[in-house]
């Protein structure tokens, strides 16, 4: 199939609070991915960096910064910013270059050194910035939105605090088996219930932390992979980077209000569901083909939402899927076998790349103690602030 690219290498820098700069993490991940691929940095034709806005100047630090640290060798360069979807857009840009014949081998890198506590907008008075406004006018932090979604699910679908806690229990158990995860300790439902409420109804252990971390991939044309001796590599079959469709009817970060649906009827499904739909259509598969999923569990309740948005179950059935063990290791569609953001925390430009690393290792059968049986198709899902969709389908 001509729309596929090979994943030759995957690598990470362990996530945590390490107190160093994002370049160091990114270079470590890049070197790990290059070593995994068996490709020399000098033989990489293009590098795509997912930007961080915290480690330096927004918009133009990532790609060339990593290239300089690895040693200037003249590669084509691109840097992308799409908030939490930055990593997927970096993968998308790399794939486009490969499919267009502009590069045989592309290194994709995302890394960040996150600040402690709540994410917050940059300083200064900026009332034309919706992200600034929601803090200034409402004090609405990211967890406030997670709380709104969680409470809404409880009211509409009957989800319980115990359901939310069980997501954390599941993901923490997976993270305990992952050497790259920040938190490597099992968590009980009692511990979730005993943690402090941050934004009703969600508690500290329902919400993901911020972390330092990095992830990298070496992608190539299928032709190059064959010549390189990788006859049957993990392949990326789809990269969804869609925008929403007007009017959006779910109150999304960082908005103060939804669009009005009084004049223009909303499209079928929400923005989040359209992200997966676009990936499935491009890959020529459906949710029934999925062996595992890595989803963006900013909060425990949000993971249940993703089950529905990925089509793993019907609307409102996410908690039942969890309760039935379908998304646990050994279930029909294990979700967040890496441990998810619950175990990693957020390192914004790296997380969508890290999801693809996990899927790659699972599809190769090299995920060690976390390995699930017979994985053939993996999907990732993510959503970037300001309307950036992100989903990747990889197959073996």
């Amino acid at each position, binding site marked *: 199939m001509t729309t596929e690219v090979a994943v030759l290498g995957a690598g990470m820098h362990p996530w945590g609070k390490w107190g160093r700069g994002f370049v160091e993490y990114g270079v470590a991940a890049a070197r790990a991915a290059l070593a995994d691929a068996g490709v020399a940095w000098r033989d990489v034709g293009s590098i795509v960096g997912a930007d961080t806005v915290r480690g330096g100047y927004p918009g133009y630090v990532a790609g060339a910064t990593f290239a300089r640290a690895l040693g200037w060798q003249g590669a084509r360069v691109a840097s992308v910013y799409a908030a939490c979807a930055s990593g997927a857009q970096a993968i998308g840009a790399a794939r486009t270059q490969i499919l267009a014949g502009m590069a045989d081998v592309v290194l994709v890198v995302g890394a960040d050194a996150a600040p402690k506590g709540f994410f917050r907008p940059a300083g200064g008075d900026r009332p034309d910035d919706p992200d600034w406004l929601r803090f200034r006018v409402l004090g609405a932090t990211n967890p406030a939105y997670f709380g*709104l979604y969680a409470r809404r699910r409880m009211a509409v679908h009957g989800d319980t605090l115990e359901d939310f806690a069980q997501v954390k229990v599941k993901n923490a158990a997976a993270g305990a088996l992952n050497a790259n995860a920040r938190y490597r300790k099992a968590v009980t439902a009692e511990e979730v219930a005993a943690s402090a409420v941050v934004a009703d109804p969600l508690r500290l252990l329902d919400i993901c932390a911020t972390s330092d971390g990095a992830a990298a991939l070496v992608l190539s044309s299928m032709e190059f992979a064959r010549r390189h001796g990788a006859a049957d590599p993990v392949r990326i079959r789809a990269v969804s980077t869609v925008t929403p469709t007007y009017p959006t*009817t779910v109150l999304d970060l960082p908005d103060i209000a939804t669009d009005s649906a009084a004049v223009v009827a909303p499209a079928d499904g929400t923005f989040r569901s359209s992200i997966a739909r676009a990936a499935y259509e491009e890959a020529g598969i459906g949710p029934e083909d999925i062996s595992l999923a890595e989803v963006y569990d900013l909060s425990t309740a949000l993971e249940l939402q993703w089950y529905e948005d990925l089509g793993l179950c019907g609307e409102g059935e996410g908690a039942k899927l969890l309760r039935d063990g379908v998304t646990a290791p050994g279930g029909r569609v294990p979700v967040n076998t890496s441990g998810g953001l619950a175990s990693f925390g957020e390192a914004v430009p790296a997380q969508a790349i890290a999801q693809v690393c996990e899927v790659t290792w699972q599809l190769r059968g090299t995920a060690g103690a976390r390995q699930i049986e017979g994985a053939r198709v993996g999907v990732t899902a993510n959503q970037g602030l300001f309307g950036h969709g992100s989903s990747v389908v990889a197959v073996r």
Partner: protein
Amino acid sequence: MVANWFAGEGDDFRLLGTRCTACACVFFPREDGFCRNPGCAGGELAEVPLSRRGRVWSYTDGRYRPPAPYVSDPELPWEPYTLIAVELEAERMVVLGQSVPGVSVADLEVGMEVEVVPGVLDEDSGTTWTTWHWRPVEVGA
């Protein structure tokens, strides 16, 4: 701090949005630059008051002090605020806002009727920042 997002006193207090004169789409916070309907070539945007009442879509609170640019006095103990997302029937949109002081999440339910009232976001010696608050409609009042 934000110009012309609300106006009026007492029962006349309203959130102000804008409406496209070509396609009639309504925007809040007010959109004065362009109509965001992809099916509209764009029209003049005229100020329009939003419905006074709506129903709770969801709610939450902030148990920890939010970072700047939220204004709060770090010398004072943190008092959690309540946030309510309110569905306006006529506009078919959801608008977020803080509740009036004294309303906690324990007082709220999804679907409950609320109305918009003027409020104070913060005040220091020199400035009072006004805002809108959502207040549960008194049953039988």
